[in-house]
C-alpha cells in the first residue's frame, strides 16, 4: 500500500455534499425541536426532563443516541481496524456496563429523584453540602466528556470537510456549538431527546447498512472477513485477531484491566445518562428504556466489529494510519470505499449529528445540575421565587456551558479523545457510582460518607491522571518526533497507569465507608425508610405530564 489510494480517498470526500447533507439534518431536527417545544409547558420539569413524558422505547433509543458518541462510532471502528481484537475489548466494557445500570440504578433512581443525580444523593442527607458535591462531580464529568466531543469535532472537520487550517476548524466548531445551544434553549430536554432519537436511528441504520454490505462482500462469512483483514494487514496482520496487540507489556496489561473497570462501573455514574431516566413516567418505563438501550447498543457494537475489520480488509491499516485523523478515519474511509462520495457524505453527516446530540445532552445535564442543585438549593436554599426563575438560570448556564465548550473545543483541538472520555468514565466510576450505591443500599451511609466518597473519589482520580503518563512523560515517537503525552518535553509522572480506575474506584468505596463510620452524625433511619420504600415501590414519585 502506498499513500496514493488514500489521498484519493480523502479527495473523494466532497465537502460541499457533506455540508449539504449535514445542513439538511440540522434543518429537519431544528424544525422538529421547534414543533415539539410548542407543546411544552414552561416549568422546570419540562425543561429538565420533558415532564417525564417519554415512553420507555423512545427513551431507550435516545439513551443509545446519547451513549454512542463519536468516540465510540469512529474510535472503536478505528481501534479495531488498527489494533484488531484490542479495539473489540472496549466495546464489550461499554456494553456490559449497562447491566449495572439495569439491575442496580435505573429504576431506584427514577423512583427517588426528580431532575438530577443530586436529588438522589441528597435525599436523606444534609441538602446543601451533598448537592454542592453532586453538582461539582456532575460538572467535572460533563466538562471532560464535553471537551472530548468538541476536540473530536476538529479532527472530524479536517477529515470530512477538507479544512485543515486551525482558524477554519475553529469557525466550524463554533458553528456546531451555536447550533447545539439553539437546540437546548429552544427545545429543552424534549427537543434534545428528539435530536438524540433521530440521530440514533440514522447512526444505527447507517452502520447496519454498511455492516450488511461488508458481510455481503465476504459471502456473509465472518471468518472470511477476518482472513481478508489479516491478509491486508501484512506482517502484523495475524496479530489483529489476537488480544495483546496494543496492550503488550506488564504495565499495559494492568492498565487495560484498570480501564476495563472504569468502563464497566462508569456508565451507571454518568450524569447525562442518569438524567435520561427521569424523562420517563415510571420505574417500569425506566427499565424498558435500559432494555431497549442494551439491545441497540449491543447491536451497534456488533456492527462496529464488522466495520472495523471491514475497514482493515478493504481500506487497509496503512491507508488509515496516514489519513488525517488516523484511526478515527477508518469508518469514513470504509464508507467511501463501499458507496463512494454519497455514502461518505451521509456517514460524515451522521458523525456530526452524533457530536451535536451528545453535546446537547451533556449541556442540558450540566445546566440542570447547576440551576437545580447549586442555584436553587445551595444558593437560594430551596426558596426560589417563581418557578420560572430556576429555568432562567438553567438557560443562562446552558449558554455559558456552550460557550465554554466551544472555547475548550478550539483549545483542545487535536488532543487525544479517548483519554478525555476515559477520564470522564474514571471520575464517574470513582466519585459517582460508589456514592449512588451506598445511598440506595446502605442504611448507615451519611452526609459525611457521601462527601468523602464524592470529593475523595474526584480528587484521587484527577491527581492520579495529572501524574500519569497521559499527561507527561511518554517516550517520544521516532516517526512523529512527538510524545504521546498531552504535554511535550516535560516528565513529572509517577503513577504508572494511563487509567486510574483500579486504584481510584476501591479508594472511593473505602472513603465512603470510612467517612460514614468515623463521623459522629447518625444516618436518619426515618429518611432511609422513606427512601427505601419509595425507591422500591414508586410511591410519591413525580407524576408524568401528559403531552
Amino acid at each position, binding site marked *: 500500500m502506498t499513500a496514493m489510494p488514500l489521498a484519493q480517498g480523502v479527495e473523494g470526500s466532497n465537502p460541499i455534499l457533506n455540508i449539504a447533507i449535514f445542513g439538511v439534518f440540522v434543518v429537519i431536527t431544528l424544525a422538529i425541536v421547534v414543533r415539539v417545544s410548542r407543546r411544552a409547558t414552561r416549568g*422546570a420539569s419540562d425543561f429538565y426532563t420533558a415532564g417525564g413524558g417519554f415512553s420507555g422505547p423512545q427513551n431507550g433509543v435516545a439513551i443509545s443516541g446519547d451513549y454512542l458518541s463519536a468516540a465510540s462510532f469512529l474510535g472503536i471502528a478505528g481501534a479495531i481496524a488498527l489494533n484488531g*481484537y484490542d479495539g473489540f475489548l472496549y466495546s*464489550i*466494557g461499554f456494553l456490559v456496563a*449497562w447491566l449495572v445500570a439495569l439491575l442496580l440504578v435505573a429504576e431506584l433512581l427514577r423512583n427517588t429523584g426528580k431532575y438530577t443525580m443530586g436529588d438522589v444523593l441528597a435525599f436523606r442527607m444534609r441538602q446543601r453540602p451533598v448537592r454542592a458535591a453532586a453538582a461539582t462531580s456532575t460538572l467535572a464529568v460533563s466538562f471532560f466528556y464535553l471537551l472530548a466531543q468538541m476536540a473530536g469535532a476538529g479532527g472530524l472537520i479536517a477529515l470530512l470537510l477538507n479544512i485543515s487550517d486551525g482558524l477554519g476548524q475553529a469557525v466550524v466548531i463554533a458553528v456546531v456549538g451555536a447550533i447545539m445551544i439553539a437546540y437546548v434553549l429552544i427545545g429543552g430536554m424534549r427537543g434534545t431527546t428528539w435530536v438524540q432519537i433521530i440521530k440514533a436511528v440514522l447512526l444505527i441504520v447507517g452502520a447496519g447498512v454498511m455492516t450488511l454490505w461488508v458481510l455481503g462482500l465476504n459471502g456473509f462469512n465472518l471468518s472470511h472477513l477476518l482472513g481478508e483483514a489479516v491478509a491486508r494487514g501484512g506482517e502484523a496482520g495475524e496479530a489483529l485477531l489476537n*488480544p495483546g496487540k496494543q496492550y503488550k507489556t506488564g504495565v499495559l*496489561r494492568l492498565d487495560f484491566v484498570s480501564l476495563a473497570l472504569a468502563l464497566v462501573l462508569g456508565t451507571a455514574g454518568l450524569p447525562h445518562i442518569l438524567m435520561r431516566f427521569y424523562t420517563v413516567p415510571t420505574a417500569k418505563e425506566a427499565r424498558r428504556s435500559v432494555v431497549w438501550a442494551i439491545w441497540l447498543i449491543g447491536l451497534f457494537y456488533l456492527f462496529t466489529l464488522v466495520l472495523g475489520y471491514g475497514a482493515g480488509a478493504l481500506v487497509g491499516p496503512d491507508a488509515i494510519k496516514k489519513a488525517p485523523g488516523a484511526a478515527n478515519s477508518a469508518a469514513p474511509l470504509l464508507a467511501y470505499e463501499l458507496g463512494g462520495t454519497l455514502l461518505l457524505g451521509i456517514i460524515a453527516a451522521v458523525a456530526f449529528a452524533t457530536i451535536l446530540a451528545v453535546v446537547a445532552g451533556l449541556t442540558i445535564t450540566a445546566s440542570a445540575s447547576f440551576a437545580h442543585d447549586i442555584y436553587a438549593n445551595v444558593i437560594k436554599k430551596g426558596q426560589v421565587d417563581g418557578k420560572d426563575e430556576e429555568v432562567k438560570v438553567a438557560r443562562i448556564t446552558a449558554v455559558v456551558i456552550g460557550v465554554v465548550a466551544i472555547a475548550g473545543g478550539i483549545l483542545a483541538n487535536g488532543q487525544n479523545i479517548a483519554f478525555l472520555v476515559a477520564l470522564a468514565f474514571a471520575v464517574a466510576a470513582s466519585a459517582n457510582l460508589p456514592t449512588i450505591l451506598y445511598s440506595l443500599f446502605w442504611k448507615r451511609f451519611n452526609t459525611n460518607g457521601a462527601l468523602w466518597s464524592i470529593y475523595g473519589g474526584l480528587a484521587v482520580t484527577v491527581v492520579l491522571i495529572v501524574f500519569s503518563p497521559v499527561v507527561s512523560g511518554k517516550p517520544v515517537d521516532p516517526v512523529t518526533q512527538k510524545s504521546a503525552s498531552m504535554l511535550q518535553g516535560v516528565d513529572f509522572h509517577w503513577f504508572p497507569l494511563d487509567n486510574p480506575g483500579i486504584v481510584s474506584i476501591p479508594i472511593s468505596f473505602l472513603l465512603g465507608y470510612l467517612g460514614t463510620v468515623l463521623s459522629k452524625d447518625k444516618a436518619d433511619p426515618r429518611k432511609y*425508610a422513606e427512601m427505601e420504600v419509595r425507591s422500591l415501590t414508586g410511591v410519591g414519585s413525580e407524576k408524568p405530564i401528559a403531552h
Partner: protein
Amino acid sequence: MSTESSSSPPPSTGEKDWREVQSAPEFQDLRRRLRNFVFPITGLFLAWYLLYVLLASYAPAFMSVKVFGNVNIGLIFGLLQFVSTFAITAWYVRFADRRLDPLAGKIRSDLEEEAK
C-alpha cells in the same frame, strides 16, 4: 404539595412514619426478592467480565487458539459477553415483571389508598 424546586421531596402521603411500611412483612419480602436477585447476578456478571478481561490481558496465547476458520477462542469469548448481557437483561425483565412489579404495585396502591 411539591413546588418546582423544593429542596426535599414532598411527603406526598402525609407525615407518616415510613419505618412502619419498611418493616411490614410485605415490604421486607419485596426487598429480599430484589436484593436476592440483583446482588448475586451483579457479582456473577462482573466476575464473568473480569475473567474475560484477565484472560485477554494475561493469557493471550490461550485466547489466540483458533476454533474454526479464523475465529479464535478470544472472539468467541467476547461474543459470549454479548450473549450473557442480552440473556441477563431478558432474565431480569421476566423476573421483575413476575416477582417484583405485582408486589410493588400492591404496596404502592395500599399506601395511596391509605393516604386518601
